[in-house]
C-alpha cells in the first residue's frame, strides 16, 4: 500500500509520486502518516517534510501551508517548498546569518514578526540541506 503524494506550490508542482509514508511538522507537533489514514485536514507549519521512499528518507523544507489526506492520497499545499537536494548549503548558511542579523536590528511589530518568520525559514532550509549526512 502506498500513498500518492502531491506537493503543490503556487508556482509549480514540486512532488507528485507514490511514497510509503511521510512525516509532517504541524503546529501541534510532528505527525506521521501511513497508508489508509483517516481523511483529515491538517495545517502545516514552517518545517521539514520527511518522505520515505524505497527505504530511503528524503527531506523537503516546507514554508507553511495545508495538507489534505484522502483515500491514500495526500495533497500538500504550501507557499514554498524546496527539496534538500536543491538547497545549496553555503547559500542557506548565508541566508541564515542575514536573517539572524535582521532579527536583531529590526523594530516595529510587523517587521519583527516578518523577521522572525524569515529566520525560521532560513533555519528550516539549513536543516533540510544538512539531512543527507
Amino acid at each position: 500500500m502506498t500513498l500518492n503524494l502531491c506537493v503543490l506550490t503556487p508556482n509549480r508542482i514540486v512532488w507528485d509520486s507514490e511514497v510509503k509514508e511521510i512525516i509532517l511538522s504541524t503546529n501541534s507537533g510532528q505527525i506521521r502518516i501511513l497508508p489508509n489514514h483517516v481523511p483529515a485536514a491538517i495545517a502545516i507549519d514552517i518545517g521539514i517534510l520527511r518522505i520515505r521512499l524505497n527505504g530511503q528518507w528524503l527531506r523537503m523544507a516546507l514554508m507553511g501551508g495545508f495538507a489534505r489526506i484522502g483515500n491514500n492520497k495526500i495533497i500538500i499545499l504550501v507557499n514554498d517548498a524546496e527539496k534538500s537536494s536543491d538547497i545549496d548549503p553555503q547559500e542557506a548558511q548565508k541566508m541564515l546569518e542575514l536573517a539572524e542579523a535582521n532579527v536583531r536590528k529590526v523594530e516595529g511589530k510587523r517587521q519583527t514578526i516578518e523577521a522572525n518568520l524569515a529566520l525560521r525559514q532560513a533555519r528550516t532550509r539549513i536543516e533540510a540541506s544538512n539531512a543527507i549526512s
Partner: protein
Amino acid sequence: MKRQRRRSGPMLTVAPAKELRSNTASITYRFSSKPPLLIPPSFSSPSPRAPFPASAIRCGLRDLRERIESVKSTQKITEAMKLVAAARVRRAQEAVISGRPFAETLAEVLCDINDQLRSEDVDIPLMNVRPVKRVGLIVITSDRGLCGGFNNSIIKKAEFRMSQLEKLGIYCKVISIGKKGNAYFRRRPSVCADMFMEGVSFPTAKEAQVIADHVFSLFVTEEVDKVELVYTKFVSLVRSDPVIHTLLPISSKGEVLDANGNSVDADGDEFFRLTTKEGKLSLKREKIMRKKDYGLPQPLWQFEQDPAQILDAMMPLYLNSQILRALQESVASELASRMNAMSNATDNAVDLQKNLSTVYNRERQAKITGEILEIVAGAEALMDF
C-alpha cells in the same frame, strides 16, 4: 517670362506616371529660366495607401538619407523587442498554467471545508462580510512602456470603478503595482494610493506574499471593507481584457453590501473562480489533478487542529494564489500587447522607409536631371556665340 514661384506647383509626388511627365515639363521650364534652385516642394498626400504628413518638407538629400538611416535602426529595435516579447509570452503562459493545480485544489478544499464548517460556529476573519464604507483597489500595471494600450486600458477601468464607487459614497484606496500605475497615481494627489514597485519580470510567490500580507492587514484592521483586484486578463495573444475580481471578503455574489444595502459588486466581477479556461493556448490538463476517484460523498474530515487554525493556515494560501495568478496574467497580457505594438511599429517603419526611399530617389533623379539640363543649356548658350 514671368517667373512664377509656384510653391505648390511641381509636386514631386509618388503618384501615377501621367502626372510625373507634366511635372518634369514644368521643371524643365523653370530650370531654364533661372539657376537651378532646389525649391523644396511640399509633398501632399500621394498614394491613398500610406498618407504622408503633408507638412513635411524635405530639405535635401542629406536629411533624407539620415532620416532613412534612423528609421532603419528604429525598425531593428522594434523588431528585436517584438521577438523578445513573443518568446517571453510563452513562458508567461506556462507560468500561469503551472500555477493552476495549486489554485484549483485550494479552491476545492476551501469549498469542502466551508461546507463542513457551516454548521459549526467558526469565525473566519477573511469571510467577514461587513457593510462596505471603504474599498481597496489593487491596480496592476506594467513597469515598462512600449506596450500599446495596455496600461491605458487598465487605468481607465480603475478610474471607472473609482467613479462608480464614489457615486455610491464609498471611499476608495488604491494600491498600485507597477511603475506606470505608480506614476499615474502620483500625479493624482486626490487619490489616496499605496505604491508598490515590481522590479521583476516574472512574478513569484514571494512578491505575491508581500502584497497579500499588506492587503490582509488592511482588511483585518478594518481599514478597508472590501478588496478588489483590477488586472488584465489574458484572453488570447491578440486580446486581453481588464477585469475586476473581488479578493476579500470571500463570499458569494451579491452578498457584499454597502451601508445602504446596495450591492457594490462591479459588473462582470468574478468570484472565487474555479474555472480554468485559457485563451487559445490549450495545454493538456495535468493528469494527476484529473484523477478524480472521489466518486463517493466526501468523508468527514478529521481536523488535526482547531478548524479555525486550519482555516487560518489556508487563507494566506488563498490570497497568495489569487494575487499571484492576477500578476501572472497581467504579465502575460503586457507581453502580448507589447508584441503586437512592436509588430505594428515594425510594419509602419517598413512602410515609412519605403516612402522615404522613393522620395529620396526622386529627389536625387531630379537633381541629376537639373544638372544635366544646366550643362546642356550652358553648352547651347555658348554655341550661339
